[in-house]
């Protein structure tokens, strides 16, 4: 136990020593405070002391204004700041930890202690998750208070973003650790991780594209500009589209799903019964004062829920187990 606490304590000191960590904390604070500065009055949305939108849908106390506030967090801040930039900065900061640990002169002092290599490896890995979890917790606390005080929505589910987005980071970091331990190169680990992230994102987009096309065709919907038009009869789906879609869908069982996991926070945060008639409405729709029509919303809801939570989390967790297993095995077996 003492050894575990020592390794975790060292991770904490490492966190404190990295400038990028403080940058992430700083940006989290700023973004959190900006979020908290958004409010609603009888005319619409405000920012600090300024009226930024005169929108009857966003009038203080309406269900839609509350929903807008939550959607701002789930649909904008989570995917862009927490799910992308914060993860990226955390990966950049922590990518070098294992290659540096394995440098001549460093590794010997650690391995010559009465602690198993597997323990060193896993506890070090867990400690590094603090890079993401610490600023995330701070950020979620601000959002939780802002939602409660500004919109009178006290949602403890906001804190579910901490384990979920730490999980997203841990998926990518497990790969960075594996490559870092294997090659002992920070640069290689970083490039490989970015590449994996990019591939996962492309697969996600492609899968979503094919899914939407097939789903709409089956429902007899045709895309006209930004609108979906109901033709009333089922459209034919090209054979190869179905084939590609099945292939991509199968590949998602092997690949981790950082993007889908990020978007999962919305599913845990907003319940359909809370939304009522506004289920499926988008942030842009509310902002533009033209909430989408029924079929658009239906399509949106179906697209968001096309994969079960297990389908999203299980392959990512398995991927992580495999990466950590391989990384740990190399770390435990290697002569230094």
């Amino acid at each position, binding site marked *: 136990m*003492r*050894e575990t*606490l*020592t*390794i975790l*304590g*060292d991770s904490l*000191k*490492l966190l*404190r*020593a990295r400038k990028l960590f403080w940058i992430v904390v700083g940006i989290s604070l700023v973004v959190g405070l900006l979020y908290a500065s958004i409010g609603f009055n009888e005319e619409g949305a405000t920012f600090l002391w300024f009226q930024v939108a005169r929108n009857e849908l966003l009038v203080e106390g309406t269900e839609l204004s509350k929903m807008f506030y939550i959607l701002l967090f789930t649909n904008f801040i989570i995917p862009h700041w927490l799910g992308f930039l914060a993860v990226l900065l955390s990966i950049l900061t922590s990518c070098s930890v294992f290659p540096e640990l394995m*440098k*001549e*002169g*460093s*590794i*010997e*002092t*650690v*391995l*010559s*202690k*009465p*602690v*198993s290599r597997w323990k060193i490896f896993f506890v070090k890995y867990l400690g590094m998750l603090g890079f993401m979890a610490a600023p995330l917790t701070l950020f979620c606390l601000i959002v939780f208070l802002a939602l409660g005080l500004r919109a009178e929505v006290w949602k403890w589910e906001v804190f579910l973003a901490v384990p979920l987005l730490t999980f997203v980071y841990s998926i990518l970091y497990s790969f960075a650790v594996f490559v870092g331990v294997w090659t002992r190169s920070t640069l290689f680990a970083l490039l490989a991780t970015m590449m994996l992230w990019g591939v996962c994102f492309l697969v996600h987009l492609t899968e979503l594209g094919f899914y939407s096309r097939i789903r709409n065709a089956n429902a007899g919907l045709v895309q006209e500009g930004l609108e979906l038009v109901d033709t009333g009869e089922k459209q034919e789906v090209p054979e190869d589209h179905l084939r590609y879609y099945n292939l991509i869908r199968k590949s998602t069982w092997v690949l981790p799903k950082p993007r889908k996991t990020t978007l999962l926070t919305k599913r845990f945060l907003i319940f359909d019964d809370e939304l009522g008639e506004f289920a499926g409405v988008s942030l842009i729709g509310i902002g533009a004062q033209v909430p989408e029509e029924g079929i658009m919303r239906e399509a949106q809801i179906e697209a968001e829920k096309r994969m079960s939570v297990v389908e999203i989390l299980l392959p990512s967790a398995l991927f992580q187990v495999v990466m950590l297993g391989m990384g740990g095995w190399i770390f435990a*077996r290697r*002569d*230094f």
Partner: protein
Amino acid sequence: MSEWVLDLKGVRKVYRGGVEALRGVDLQVPRGTIFGLLGPNGAGKSTLVKILTTIIRPTACEGTFLGEAVGHKPTLKRVGYLPEHARFPEYLTAREVVHMAAGLSGMQPAVTRGRANTLLERVGLGDWQNKKVGGFSKGMKQRVGIAQALINDPEVIFLDEPTDGVDPAGRRDFRLLLEELRKEGKTVFVNSHLLGELEMVCDRVAILSKGEIKLEGALKDLTGRQVEYRISCGKIDSVFKQSFVNDGTRWEAGDLVVATAAAEEVMPLLDQLRAGGVVIEGLVRKSASLEDVFMEAVGTDTPGAAPKAARSPQPPALK
């Protein structure tokens, strides 16, 4: 309790790619000794120490280390290690480095606090213990390394090139520290290229070359094998001089050199010289240095012993 802290048989290490770093090393080291592990670069010294500290897995290894099989992790609670080119996290202070080593050895913070203070004072870093090691000189980092190697009050301490980058005063402090450790009954393994320094502190040495132990034993026995007496003489007749040359004696730079460890064998020669009217200007007993023993054991194995022509080719003459 066994008298040996280390009792090894047939230690072999073959790296991937077929490089044989150790070719069947047998070694026994008694408790409470300062043991010098010498050898040219690539001889296998560090590999041997790394096998004992579980950093490298041996290809074959029989025997015991502190009464347990080599590779037994809990045994390392009783071991301290300063690796060659030791690097410590630059964000930690000297005190934190020592505390971290203690924590990894399973020591409780209450015990660590007092001991860390004492040790950092002992290695001369009392005033620097709260400074980050990132700003330390090489010598200061070595001192931190020694402190962290001793924090768990180990029975066996491995020090790999401990005086690398340390100034002369620091080296003297290091020798004094080794003396203290010897008095405390610790067994200390020292890997170093500074043979003169090792000669001053070691009780026993092993000389490794090409993965094999070429020579091992008590330092005084190894150096005592080549004792000679040098008699410095004043003016001496060349014919008379020649009469002294035989199997055990020779003339070297005006000195009569007698290859013996027994002083009584020198007495008749002194009498003969004095009877011949030769003035005795000096008499010195000289034993082989560790460097002599080392060079004899290693021979041409060391890169430094390569023929001069091969070592430093002469540039062609300018025309």
